[in-house]
Each structure stands twice: as structure tokens, then as C-alpha cells.
């Protein structure tokens, strides 16, 4: 995960384009699409922190998205609280639920963690669906008021766009700061080998908790923004299918890469729009894509991109002889593995 020189400019340029888009077009289709991409990118980047960096595959993140969304919706509809307060409470509450879930589940290793998180995701979505007296169940939660901050009302698409862009940029900034820091490297070291990390004095459980809680906070934030934008909620947003979709976005874009979640979400969501008429069948295409990606492009588009950049100007003397190629393969094999013990 080295910083690719020049990418700073690309990011800056894209940022200004994003700022200017509502000025260039008022096509609501595109704006809506971008808003959705921003929202889901935030959630997927949360999944990326825990799965891609800390190496713990969590399938409960649609559930945390649901908690964030429903908390905001319920606070605004049933408690008439203001948008900002509701947003803050949603994020904090999601993080707290995340802390409790993390405390239990992060003691589990490898597959157990993934299975546990899958069950947790099912529980969260079932609770949201069945607890009708609170969430209105399958009827859905309607009539979430227009978000207002002070006297500014976010009633138009353009204003919503800027609101959500703000949080998207904020989330990506924090992600970047974390990933390119000692904290992010600590996560990666746990993904690489929990045993080695602990022998170097790293309290793996503490780091995994941090990664997990932060990742649920991102999912909760995305959920809350989603609720404030669409202004109605159905229990299906928390369904396990959504977790699988997020996983798809993450893998296509590149798990364990900073921009992978954004690239994957944008690309796959666009593709899905084209395949609108397929709706229920779109996984006929995306299922095999998921399989092909883990087989041939385990770090997705961004990973392949970084590989290209690295290989082109071959500055380093290439000393990979036969003996080392074995190691290299072992290394690539272990890239994605979460704290697998081989002692």
C-alpha cells in the first residue's frame, strides 16, 4: 500500500469535479446515482477497514447500516429530534452496538468470526423486520422529515448532494489518514500475522476493536445519511443480501486498498443500473465475477492498477530467483489472510 506519486493530483482533480458537478448538470438521474455511490462507498470503506486491513471478514455490516438508518429515522420521526443530533446519536449508537458485538466476536478466529458476523447480520435484519412496534416492520418507516441544519434545509437534490459529499470527503479523509499511519500499519500487521504482531507487543484485540468499531461507525454514518436522503426506510436495507452486495463492491474495487471501495461501488452500481431489467437475476453475472476476482484479481481494480504502476518503471533490481519465487507466492497467498497462525 505505497502511495502512488501523482495520485494526489488525481484525487484533488476528482474532488473539484465532484464539487462542480451540480453546476454542470441538473440531471437528477446522475445526481441521485452519485449520492448513492457516496453513501454506499462510505459503508463499503468501513467493511474495507475491518476486512481489508484488519483481515476480519465481517458480513454484519448491512446490519450496522440498518442500525444507523433506523436510529436516524426513528429519532426524527418518533422523537422529533433535529437532523444533526439524530445523525450524531445514530453514529454513536451504531458504534456502541459495534463495540459490544466486537467484544464478543473478535475473540473468534478466522472462519468463526465470519460465520458469527453472518449470523449477527441475520439477527440484526430479523430484529429490524420483526420489531414492528418500533420499526413498522415490512410496512416501512415513512415520513422522515427533510434534514435541516440551523436554518438551512436540505430539500433539493443539489443541497443533499453537497451534504452527502461533505461526509463522503470527511470519511475518505479520515480513512486516508488512518490507513497511511502507524495505526493502519498496525491493522495490516494483524491481518498478516496476529501471532507475529503480538510477539512485537501489539495488543491485537485492542487494535481489532478499534478497526471494528470505526468500521461500524462508517456503516452507521452511511445508513443515517441514506435515511436522511431517501426519507423512508424498509427492513430490506439491513438484509444479508446487502452485505453480500457490499462485499461485491469491495472486491471489484479492491479489498485492502484506500480507493477500492469507491471505485468498486461506482462501477458495480453503474453496471447494475444498466442491468435494471435483470434485477433479481443480476447475480447470474456478479456471482461469477466475485469468484473470478478472488481467483485472478484478489486486490480488485485498484490492486491491479497499483501492480501496473509498480511494474512499469522497474527501479528495483529484480532478484527473484527460483528460491525466492516460492516465497513471493507464499507472500501473495497470505496477503488477504486474516491472522492465520502457522507456527
Amino acid at each position: 500500500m505505497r502511495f502512488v506519486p501523482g495520485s494526489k493530483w488525481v484525487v484533488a482533480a476528482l474532488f473539484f469535479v465532484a464539487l462542480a458537478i451540480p453546476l454542470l448538470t441538473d440531471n437528477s438521474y446522475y445526481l441521485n446515482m452519485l449520492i448513492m455511490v457516496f453513501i454506499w462507498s462510505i459503508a463499503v470503506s468501513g467493511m474495507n477497514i475491518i476486512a481489508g486491513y484488519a483481515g476480519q471478514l465481517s458480513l454484519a455490516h448491512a446490519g450496522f447500516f440498518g442500525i444507523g438508518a433506523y436510529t436516524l429515522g426513528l429519532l426524527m420521526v418518533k422523537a422529533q429530534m433535529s437532523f444533526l443530533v439524530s445523525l450524531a446519536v445514530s453514529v454513536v449508537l451504531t458504534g456502541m452496538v459495534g463495540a459490544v458485538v466486537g467484544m464478543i466476536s473478535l475473540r473468534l478466529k478466522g472462519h468463526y468470526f465470519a460465520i458469527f458476523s453472518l449470523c449477527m447480520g441475520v439477527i440484526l435484519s430479523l430484529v429490524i423486520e420483526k420489531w414492528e412496534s418500533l420499526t413498522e416492520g415490512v410496512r416501512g418507516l415513512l415520513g422522515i422529515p427533510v434534514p435541516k441544519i440551523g436554518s438551512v434545509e436540505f430539500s433539493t437534490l443539489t443541497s443533499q448532494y453537497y451534504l452527502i459529499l461533505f461526509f463522503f470527503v470527511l470519511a475518505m479523509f479520515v480513512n486516508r489518514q488512518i490507513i497511511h499511519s502507524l495505526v493502519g500499519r498496525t491493522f495490516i500487521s494483524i491481518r498478516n500475522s496476529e501471532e507475529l504482531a503480538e510477539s512485537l507487543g501489539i495488543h491485537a484485540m485492542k487494535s481489532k476493536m478499534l478497526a471494528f468499531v470505526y468500521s461500524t461507525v462508517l456503516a452507521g454514518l452511511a445508513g443515517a445519511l441514506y435515511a436522511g436522503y431517501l426519507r423512508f426506510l424498509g427492513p430490506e436495507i439491513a438484509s444479508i443480501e446487502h452485505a453480500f452486495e457490499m462485499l461485491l463492491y469491495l472486491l471489484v474495487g479492491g479489498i485492502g486498498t484506500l480507493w477500492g471501495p469507491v471505485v468498486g461501488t461506482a462501477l458495480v452500481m453503474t453496471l447494475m443500473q444498466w442491468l435494471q431489467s435483470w434485477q433479481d437475476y443480476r447475480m447470474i453475472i456478479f456471482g461469477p465475477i466475485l469468484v473470478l476476482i478472488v481467483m485472478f484479481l484478489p486486490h480488485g481494480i485498484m490492486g491491479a492498477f497499483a501492480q501496473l504502476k509498480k511494474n512499469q518503471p522497474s527501479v528495483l533490481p529484480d532478484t527473484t530467483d527460483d528460491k525466492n519465487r516460492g516465497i513471493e507466492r507464499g507472500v501473495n497467498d497470505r496477503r488477504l489472510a486474516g491472522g492465520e497462525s502457522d507456527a
Partner: protein
Amino acid sequence: MLRTEKLSKYFGGNQAVNSVDFQINQGEITAIIGPNGAGKTTFFNLISGLHPPTSGKIFFEGEEVTNKRSYEMAKMGIARTFQTTKLFAGATVMENLMIGHRLRTKSGFWGAVIRSQRYRNEERACREKALQVLEFVGASALANRSVASISQEEQKRVAIALALSTDPKIVLLDEPAGGINADETSNLAELITKMKNAGLTICIIEHKMQMIMKLADRIMVLNQGIKIAEGTPDEISRNETVIEAYLGGGAHAQAH
């Protein structure tokens, strides 16, 4: 400095380490030898906190540390390398070593997000520590290489550097000379002497007897989990039980 009392580890019915009383003295090089499966690595795993002992006690600098976890042991100053060289794959040597010094830093999430003064100081400290230990092990040139692209012997050096980057008091080396040739072995012996001269306490597991006999101040011999002898290299090479159980044949000849 580090002392064990009747330390045992059973894996099911297998008594991998059986009631071992042992001591590592400050500033010395202590060696543990024994045939394959004798329980040497398991013993390291116990005193580095990787596995909890079945029974017995461990003391470090007078304090009981029996059930401390490995990250706590590392913080107290016990560093180790692994028999199968372990490094963080997919990262550069530098990135590996910076993580090695992470335990001496305090910055957390917010410090990293806002890049606080303390965070920046600590990151610099990690980087300086990394360069310093790399120079110490004579591998400065490798800083920006990916760990996958360096040779077996270089990986061994980097693994030692990684242990040193934690600012340890004791370094446990599990077969540092395994799988490297004679020249490289003598370089490694030099490095270990240099570590001792720098004031570190060292405990080493090794099958290469010649190297051990030259380096070690004291040797413990394990066989089937039991300590069968302890003493200076001279005493050990004359010890009948040891010769019978272990040294006999080729290894014996090699030792003289």
C-alpha cells in the same frame, strides 16, 4: 533475569516441556539444545507468553509473569524470533521494522487523523529506530526492499532487526542459523556477539553445535521435555548423559 520454576506444557498427553527449572542471566548468551521435538520451541513459546503453561511459574526481573500474554511480555522487554522466519509479508523491510517499534508509541486513532505533534514525533522515532537496527544488523541497504524479494539469510537478519526494534532486554532466537550456509553462519555468530556486547541478554536455540560451543556462556540440554543437563559448553561436551542422549555420533565429533 528470567527464571522458570517447574515449568510444564502438555499438549493432550504429550509432555512437550516437563517441569523445567531454568535461568537466563543478565548479559549472557544462554543456549538451549536438544534433539528434534525436545520441546525447545515450546519452551520459547512459554517464556515469550505465546502459550500459557500447563503448570509452573515464570519470573522476569523478580516479578511473576507466568500468565502474561505475548504482547505484554514484549512490552516488558522480551523479544523473539521464530523458527520459521516470520515477517509481515507484502510489506517492505522498513514497514516491518516500523511496526516493530509500535509498542513504544502511544498515539491512537485521533493522533493519526489529525497528525498531532506527538504522532509525528513517534512516527519519526519509529523510522529512526528502524534505520538504527538495520544498521546494527548490517542490512541498511535493504530498507526499501519488499521482504519477499530478499534472500533467506537477509530475512533472518531482518527478523533479528525486527526483534531488536522493540527495544528488548532479552532476545530469544529460535534457530537463527537454520537453513543458511557456513559463511553466513559465522557472520551471524558475529552479529550475536555484537548484540551481547551491546548489553543484550540472549537466549538461543540452535542445532549447529560448533557455533553454540563458541558463543554460549551456558547451555541447557532438553530431551523429551526434560532438562537433562545444564552448564558451560565444556561441561556439556563432557557430560555423559548428554553425549548418550544427544551428542553421540556425528554431532559429538563436530563439537570437538
